[in-house]
């Protein structure tokens, strides 16, 4: 869908930049090859973008204007309605909002859009250092030591799905399987509602 939006709006000074927070280029390859994007479609195995923007889940979509300013902070948005029953966030209003932004400069928001990008807390920063350590140890074949640091990262930053769910495929767990449902239960138990409103809730 982002490619279709690029074809529609690309000659008006608009460019989507998609970033896959996957553990390897090969994990993202099937999705990228299927979409065949002509816009930048990047691979972020170290979660650099998650770190710098304080993102705690995917998808996370941010509007950046011509001057490099964030004009609409991160929200969970979807290019299609394929999984709308699960996440409850329709793509249509968002895509129309993007069109309006490109065509008129109007920045439309709704209840899911936070007023600013919250900076990572100290614990979240330590969690990211723990995650990077775990990821390296895992690549060195030290899976047990890695598991301890993945777990520590999750304890320090329990709402960060880029850490907790993002480490599942690395550790040979199914990100749609039992470990995910455990994570989801734990997340709900701490009073979280839906993925779409996560970013806005985080402000409180």
């Amino acid at each position: 869908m982002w490619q279709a939006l690029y074809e529609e709006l690309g000659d008006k000074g608009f460019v989507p930049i998609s970033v896959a927070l996957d553990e390897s280029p090969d994990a993202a390859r099937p999705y990228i090859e299927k979409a065949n994007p002509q816009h930048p479609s990047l691979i972020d195995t170290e979660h650099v973008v998650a770190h710098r923007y304080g993102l705690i889940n995917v998808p996370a979509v941010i509007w950046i204007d011509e001057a490099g300013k964030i004009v609409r902070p991160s929200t969970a948005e979807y290019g299609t309605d394929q999984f709308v029953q699960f996440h409850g966030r329709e793509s249509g209003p968002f895509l129309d909002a993007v069109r309006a932004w490109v065509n008129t400069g109007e920045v439309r928001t709704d209840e899911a859009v936070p007023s600013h990008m919250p900076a990572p807390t100290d614990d979240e920063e330590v969690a990211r250092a723990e995650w990077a350590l775990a990821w390296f140890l895992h690549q060195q074949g030290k899976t047990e030591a890695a598991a301890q640091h993945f777990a520590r990262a999750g304890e320090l930053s329990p709402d960060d799905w880029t850490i907790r769910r993002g480490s599942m495929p690395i550790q040979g767990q199914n990100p749609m399987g039992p470990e995910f449902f455990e994570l989801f239960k734990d997340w709900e138990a701490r009073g979280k509602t839906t993925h779409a409103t996560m970013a806005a809730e985080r402000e409180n």
Partner: protein
Amino acid sequence: MGTTPFTLIDKGQPHRIDSTNEGSTLRLATKPLLEALGWTQKTEGLCRGDVCIPIASQPDLITQQGADLLALGGVLGRKVAVDREASTASIGEETAVNRAQLAQGIAPDFTLPDLSGKEYSLSSYRGKKVLLIAYASW
């Protein structure tokens, strides 16, 4: 005191640096450590370009045995995670810059490769409206 080879990960890159354990304090060889992190030790303190951080008030930060990694992380505003058994540590980003940028609504820059390895930077798209989409197969 004997030294042990140690690995410090910074921005995904491993740096091999000799280490010593001084009780509970982990010290890494000062010069290679500072070099890996882009700093040099001068009379003014720790310097990078025009910026110097005075360290005279912390005599234990850098000794003959090396630099205290956790304390150095504190001085540089970078979080450190350590695995002593694996002789490996990771040092986080300098988030003060990012925090300040996010607080002002400035989009932090990044450079990342595509599937073919070609690198792209956000900053090269100034003048365009950018839709930044972070996603994952999980």
